[in-house]
């Protein structure tokens, strides 16, 4: 009996050893191609997947020894879930795209690696590469002073306004509102009701659904901030919700609905807003630059884009996805992934990506390319996004970012629906946020 068991154990060991040996020998073969898995989320689907496939194909044509296997993984949240599952299953992707705001979670959970060594290995070129990224975008790549991600599909929020409606009510179509005061004043002129008191056109629209409100709110909070400080500390361990300035910003939203009566009451969905704008039902909307292509294709009226109107200062949020390299993969795979990331984030390719998708190219040199110059000549409204970046700061970013977003969104909604005053809402948000973040302090 025991002899048999020993024999079986021995056999298993031999078999295991031989497979290990076999695996080792295949990797040693120089002709073998390195296959990298790349998880990427597509928020809108469709043509973007084709563009990513094209980028991978172009890279493989230049680097025949590397195979990039792109895996489309749903939206940003789904992608985090899939990466976590893949890591638990010991089969992680080699690199991936996810929200810049996820970097604290990615770092603290040991999902992604800092890229500083890879950058340093590139010497002066590496430093020049990083320095070329716009500060407004590069700012949210750092965790404790280390670079964890490279900006890729980034966006910012701008105001789209209906020039025809401006002309109709006697406003100068070339002068969009520059301040909160003007925003209210113009909106009151632009709002239009029929005889029964139903709204034919609202002055302004901001999406307040969960997942969108926190983005616009970052902008409004920055505009009202005394010292230009964002909603969270730079180390991602402290939220600053409960300030009189933030309560004022939220009060403005409530007032736009109730006091000034210029914004649709309740919670308007992010996805509905462009349609309402295109139908002429709202004269100004706060939306992503990513919607520019859609609006310029479908608008039956003249439209303009503008900075988000400021108050104490100018301010706008940035958002969008960055490249990360997964922790725990072999160094040569990290280098191959890094090569791909640099390839895709070249000035020209980012410029092309900007044209194709409406995301803002995050590199300064992209804006000196002929591609972008021609694009701006064709569609001057596209320039505003780039010009606004110096005033823009990252959207709410902390540890456990998606839980924090939810907290802010819930409490914003509680003020909008009248369950709480703006000051109470901000106070509640602060208490809930402190509870979540206390284990990181």
């Amino acid at each position, binding site marked *: *009996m025991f002899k048999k068991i020993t024999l079986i154990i021995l056999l298993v060991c031999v078999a295991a050893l031989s497979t290990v040996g076999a695996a080792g020998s295949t990797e040693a073969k120089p002709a073998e191609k390195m296959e990298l898995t790349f998880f990427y989320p597509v928020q809108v689907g469709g043509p973007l997947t084709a563009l990513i496939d094209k980028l991978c194909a172009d890279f493989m044509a230049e680097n025949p020894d590397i195979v990039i296997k792109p895996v489309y993984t749903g939206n940003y949240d789904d992608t985090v879930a899939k990466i976590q599952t893949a890591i638990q299953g010991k089969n992680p992707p080699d690199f991936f795209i996810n929200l810049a705001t996820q970097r604290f979670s990615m770092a603290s959970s040991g999902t992604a690696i800092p890229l500083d060594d890879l950058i340093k290995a590139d010497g002066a070129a590496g430093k020049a590469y990083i320095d070329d990224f716009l500060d407004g975008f590069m700012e949210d790549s750092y965790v404790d002073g280390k670079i964890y991600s490279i900006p890729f599909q980034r966006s910012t929020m701008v105001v789209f306004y209906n020039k025809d409606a401006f002309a109709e009510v006697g406003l100068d179509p070339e002068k969009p509102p520059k301040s909160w005061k003007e925003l209210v004043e113009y909106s009151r002129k632009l709002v239009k009701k029929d005889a029964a008191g139903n709204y034919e056109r609202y002055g302004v629209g901001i999406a307040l659904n969960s*997942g969108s409100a926190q983005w616009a709110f970052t902008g409004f909070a920055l505009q009202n901030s005394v010292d230009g400080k964002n909603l969270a500390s730079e180390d991602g361990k402290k939220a600053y919700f409960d300030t009189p300035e933030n309560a004022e910003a939220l009060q403005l939203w409530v007032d736009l609905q109730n006091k000034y009566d210029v914004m*649709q009451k309740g919670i308007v969905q992010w996805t509905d807003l462009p349609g309402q704008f295109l*139908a002429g039902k709202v004269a100004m909307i706060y939306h992503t630059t990513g919607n520019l292509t859609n609006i310029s294709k479908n608008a039956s009226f003249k439209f303009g884009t503008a900075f988000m109107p400021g108050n104490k200062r100018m301010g706008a949020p940035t958002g969008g996805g960055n490249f990360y390299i997964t922790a725990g993969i072999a160094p040569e795979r990290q280098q191959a992934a890094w090569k791909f990331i640099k390839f895709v984030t070249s000035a020209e390719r980012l410029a092309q990506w900007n044209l194709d998708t409406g995301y803002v190219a995050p590199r300064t040199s992209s804006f000196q390319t002929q591609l972008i110059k021609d694009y701006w000549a064709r569609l001057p409204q596209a320039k505003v996004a780039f010009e606004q970046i110096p005033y823009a700061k990252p959207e709410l970013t902390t540890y456990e970012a998606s839980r924090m977003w939810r907290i802010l969104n819930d409490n914003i909604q509680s003020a909008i629906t009248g369950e709480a005053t703006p000051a109470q809402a901000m106070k509640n948000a602060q208490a809930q946020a402190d509870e979540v973040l206390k284990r990181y302090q």
Partner: protein
Amino acid sequence: MKTTLTRGYAVRLSRGMKTNLKAWILLAPSLVFLLTFTVFPILRSFFLGLTQYEFGMRSPEFIGLENYINFAKSALFWKIMGNTLYFSFLTVLPSMVIGLGLAMIVNTKIHGVGFIRTSFFYPVIMPMIAIASIWMFIYMAESGMLDQLLMAVGLKAMNVLSYRETVIPAMSFMYVWKEAGYLMIFFLSGLQNISGELYEAATIDGASPFTMFRKITLPLLGPTLLFVSTIALTNSVKLVDHIVIMTEGGPNNGSTMLLYHIYQQGFAWFDQAKASALTVVMLVIMLAIAMIQFVNADSRIHYN
């Protein structure tokens, strides 16, 4: 030693297992699946529910009942339980009443009953995601069908998904529309099991249709009613798709229900421990529903 061991096995096998060996072999595939996909996850949820295991933690840490104590103290948890209960309250009885009504309509021998049957059943075969997407257009603020209708008759637009007072009733209405057709099928099979002779006899005795319904149909539908109410109640608790599509739980968690919250904790915030603890809560609720109904109703049902 060696021989006794082998003999021991042989003896035990012949006594207990051998007679049932065939049954065990036949049961094995489904047993394996049950153990892997039902029993194991349940046990693991019980275990993880007693730990702290947040995003980024390498392994779960045992904390006893702390998760449950925190839920009991959390206003959000009770709000979510309230929402879930409210939704069940608004959907179970109406969808059963309507389902029974529909079943009685299609059980009659009128012309074109097949078409009616199909059209009542049609919402059932559509996935909840599709239904939620369609109803989102109906409920859409101002430009949606509901608000347009309201405005056409001179009322104010309601923007039902925006307010905590209206969001759950609006979702319930949609769900009743979908669920009634599903329950109809069960009622229909129940109705068709009732012998026609009973009605003939009652008709000869001069009973009114209402009396027949009360004295024949309802009592004989007893087992079906029990079954349907269990199904309807558990179904209403385990819904999630429409929330993802229509409101994401908003406004201010006004439409967040238990299963959606489990999804949030588990897959948006990667808090496996809290998600597991909530799953245990859900499991207990489901079991309680089933227990109460089966134990309590057993005595009062008239089987055919």
